[in-house]
């Protein structure tokens, strides 16, 4: 099945893509999807998303079909889902 991945901020620059279709297996989690695409886009991309323990960083704004995902609880993606990732950065 396929999902749409939308990237913002530095992730978009590193991937050099705004949006992509990602093919995934059944029971794939949001974290799995992002780890998988990180393999294509390199260490800098992965280090923005994940900490050294492989956990999604608290500053990541990750929306699945416009709803923020609970980073403490794995979320399974479904065919046709849209996953949006925007790294929040400091300043205010």
């Amino acid at each position, binding site marked *: 099945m396929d999902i749409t991945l939308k990237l*913002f901020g530095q992730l978009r620059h590193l991937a050099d893509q705004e949006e992509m279709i990602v093919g995934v297996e059944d029971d794939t989690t949001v974290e799995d999807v992002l780890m998988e695409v990180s393999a294509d886009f390199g260490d800098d991309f992965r280090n923005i998303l994940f900490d050294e323990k492989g956990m999604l960083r608290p*500053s990541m704004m990750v929306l699945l079909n416009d*709803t923020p995902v609970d980073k403490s609880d794995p979320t399974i993606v479904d065919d046709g889902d849209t996953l949006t990732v925007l790294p*929040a*950065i400091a300043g*205010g």
Partner: protein
Amino acid sequence: MSDTIQIKLSERPEEIPAGTMLFALRDARKPGADVVVRNGAPAGEDCELQDGDDVVFITRGEIPDRDQLENLMAARHTPGVHAKIKQATVGIAGAGGLGSAIAIALARIGIGRLIVADFDVVEPSNLNRQQFFIDQIGLPKVEALKENLDRINPYVAIDTHLLKLTPANVPEVFGAVDVMVEAFDRADQKAMIVESFCRAFPAKPIVVATGLAGHMPSNTVVTRKVGKSMVVVGDLVTAAQPGTGLMAPRVGVAAHHQANAVLRLLLGEDPEQ
């Protein structure tokens, strides 16, 4: 054809003879008034008043009594806009560089109610960009901000919360808002507000800022929609860090993007297009 027309004079309904000229009415009601505002804009030339006109006469330098003040302030609010935003409640998470400037902008246009939460106090290092004064150093930011907003527009209801926002208290503090604003400094706290608020109130819009440090060109700060209910302001890449500080001009640009996005959302308009 009726012999009279209905107008609003200083926001109060009045029936006046049809054919009445604007400056004649000024001379009759407030001789010496040197600013004439008709339908939200200064009127430089005389004209015949029309049914439904909204007129205010102002004498420069005269401080009106409290009863008159709101009407006189409302004279510069665009008719139709003020009536809508006067009914609105906006939540602001954080009363720092973004939050204090957003609150002031919204107060000046006559927003109905602001709910502002912040746990911090005013420090000297805040004064390079935050809308506070030297004699407010040491005060809780929400208290200092309320003091300043009351001096600008005392007709805005302001609920302050001196507390640290957490996923547990965000729904309770901001349950009444029509539009939410994220105005934090720390990246993880920005994400926390988005997650907490959007999960509790998925249909309510939230306006977020990210990427506003330094002195990059103003036009790199943009307003964009991300999903159905989230609006994001900023360049999305320039973080506050050593060598790239937070400064009043660009923080102010972002804050006013956020304030304008709030206004457009309240008016049912697209904040991006």
